[in-house]
């Protein structure tokens, strides 16, 4: 699972609480049903991969990976075998006798992971462990790491502020904001059915418009906005001010009278090309829409007037009072 949230929202603090590196003022920490709130970190059997890896600079790769094993009264040969296996898992077997200071960021990351895996922890914690890597390496590591964790069947908790990483890596995501968990669900629900406006905004892009509920029923509301009346998922009472938000890929440009419930007219202000998709920024009266289009054919041009259509099922109304503009 992943703890996802902006900087300073308390994700790292939560991770430190789980690892025992910080003590809670109140509440309890349990691992596999056992209360460990008062257990010191070295007795918790958690593995932590730190943001800067925190490798021991005075030890070589093998020494780092074996560090957690050598205090356990194991035979030398057993330790050597376990170190070897952990290094093989992260494909760093050849580097066993290298000093860690001579490794690249990605290699250090792997050593840090092998070091945490070697002690066979009941929980693995990753504190922004991938954020120091460059984009390509990070994406490769995400895939490898996910496969590796599936293979060994370990519970892993990631802390990240990177939405893509959270969506790629996790079975469950806890979206955190200001010390509170906003939503705890699988990546698809978090992305496609965000419970709060914060989640909507943080996990991906969204187009938003403010308005007032004028009717409701069947889990939907009709909201009067500067754009016009729009339908969205929600159950706010009539008269309530709300923010209606929708994801860019649900908004279609132009086309014939379609099945979509909502429509608005606007003018394309900006087009940014992102390779596999193109992002359009569209000015609509009183709102700015973000639209994403796949492919490179039939792209509209900036300044063009367009009609936007999007379904009610993919737009969500959030009570406005809870969110400051």
């Amino acid at each position, binding site marked *: 699972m992943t703890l996802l949230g902006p900087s300073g929202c308390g994700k790292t603090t939560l991770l430190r609480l789980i690892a025992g590196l910080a003590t809670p003022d109140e509440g309890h920490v349990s691992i596999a049903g056992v209360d460990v709130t008062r257990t*010191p970190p*070295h007795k918790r059997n958690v593995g*932590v991969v730190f943001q800067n890896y*925190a490798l021991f600079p*005075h*030890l070589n790769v093998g020494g780092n990976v074996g*560090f957690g094993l050598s*205090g*356990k009264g194991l035979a030398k040969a057993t330790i050597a075998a376990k170190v070897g296996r952990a290094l093989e898992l992260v494909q760093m077997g050849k580097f066993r006798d290298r000093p860690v200071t001579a490794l690249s960021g990605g290699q250090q990351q792997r050593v840090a992971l092998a*070091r945490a895996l070697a002690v066979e922890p009941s929980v693995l914690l990753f504190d922004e462990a991938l954020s120091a890597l460059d984009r390509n390496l990070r994406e490769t590591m995400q895939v490898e790491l996910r496969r590796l964790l599936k293979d060994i069947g370990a519970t892993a908790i990631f802390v990240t502020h990177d939405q893509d990483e959270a969506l790629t890596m996790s079975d469950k995501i806890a979206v955190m904001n200001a010390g509170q968990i906003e939503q705890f669900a699988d990546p698809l629900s978090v992305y496609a059915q965000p419970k709060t406006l914060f989640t909507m905004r943080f996990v991906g892009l969204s187009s938003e418009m403010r308005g007032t509920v004028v009717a409701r029923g069947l889990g939907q509301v009709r909201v009067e906005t500067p754009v016009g009346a729009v339908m969205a998922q929600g159950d706010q009472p009539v008269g309530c001010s709300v923010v209606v938000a929708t994801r860019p890929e649900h908004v279609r440009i132009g086309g014939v009278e379609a099945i979509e419930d909502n429509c608005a007219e606007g003018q394309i202000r900006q087009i940014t090309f992102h390779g596999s998709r193109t992002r359009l920024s569209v000015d609509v009266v009183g709102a700015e829409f973000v639209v994403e289009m796949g492919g490179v054919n039939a792209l509209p041009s900036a300044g063009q007037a367009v009609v936007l259509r999007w379904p009610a099922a993919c737009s969500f109304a959030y009570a406005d009072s809870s969110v400051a503009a």
Partner: protein
Amino acid sequence: MSAVVSDRYGLLARVRCHDLLARVRSRRVGLTLAAPALFVLIFLYAAPLAHLLAGSFRGPAGFTLDAYGRVLADAYGRSLVWNSLRLGLITTGLTLVVGYPAAFGLAMSRGVLRSLFLASLFLPLAASVIAKAFAWTILLRSHGVVNDTLIFLHLTDKPIRMIFTQTSLIVGAANIFLPFMILPIYAVVAQIDPRLTEAAATLGSSPARAFLRVVLPLSTPGVIAGVALVFSLSVSAYVVPNLLMGENYPTLATTIAKAFLLIRDPALGAAAGAILMAIGLAVVVVSNRLSEQGGSTK
């Protein structure tokens, strides 16, 4: 395509050539910058030193090892060497025991506390060694501050003899040289990432084991520097044994002064100086070797 490749190689060669030129130039710049210091060292330090060394071998009938014999082959002479070494060893040991934890305290302290701590380390360095040694004589003499306080508290009826004892010498020397132990250790300890101890803890290390396996090895460069500094300072200390022990604790350093100033035996003084210098050089060589070893395992 091949044109592009060959062009690239040409560029590479040029870059490499440029690199070499830059390195030569930087060496020349380095030499120029060091020139004044080199001048001072060679003419104002090395030359007189050579003269001194030559003097240590000079007797009435030309070359002789007589002066060295008088220091190294004679029981009294050897006691000079031993006294110097002992002062150095005990002072180094004591300052290490007191200074090592203090350096950690300093590294962990914050704000006002750290400022106070640093000030209490640096301010004594601004005071002359003579003043500090005298301060100790005032504290420790028969009717000094310490004895008066003890008598006032009825802990003793008669003043205890403290000045001119070896205890006073060691306490005084340790006090005066303590900053030279704390500062290098502090400088190294402050650089140790606190996350390393946390990492050790999450890998199952008790705080004691984390200290022994992580913090202690990482702090050794500071310890080596501090030990080398305090040992070479205290082994050659002149003011401290002279003021706190006087004639009761003759060392190589006090003998050098006496040989030149009182008994007019420059060969003896020069020989004692040369021996002291050899000890100092040995310290430098050993500590360099040790810190290189520490570095090579990194």
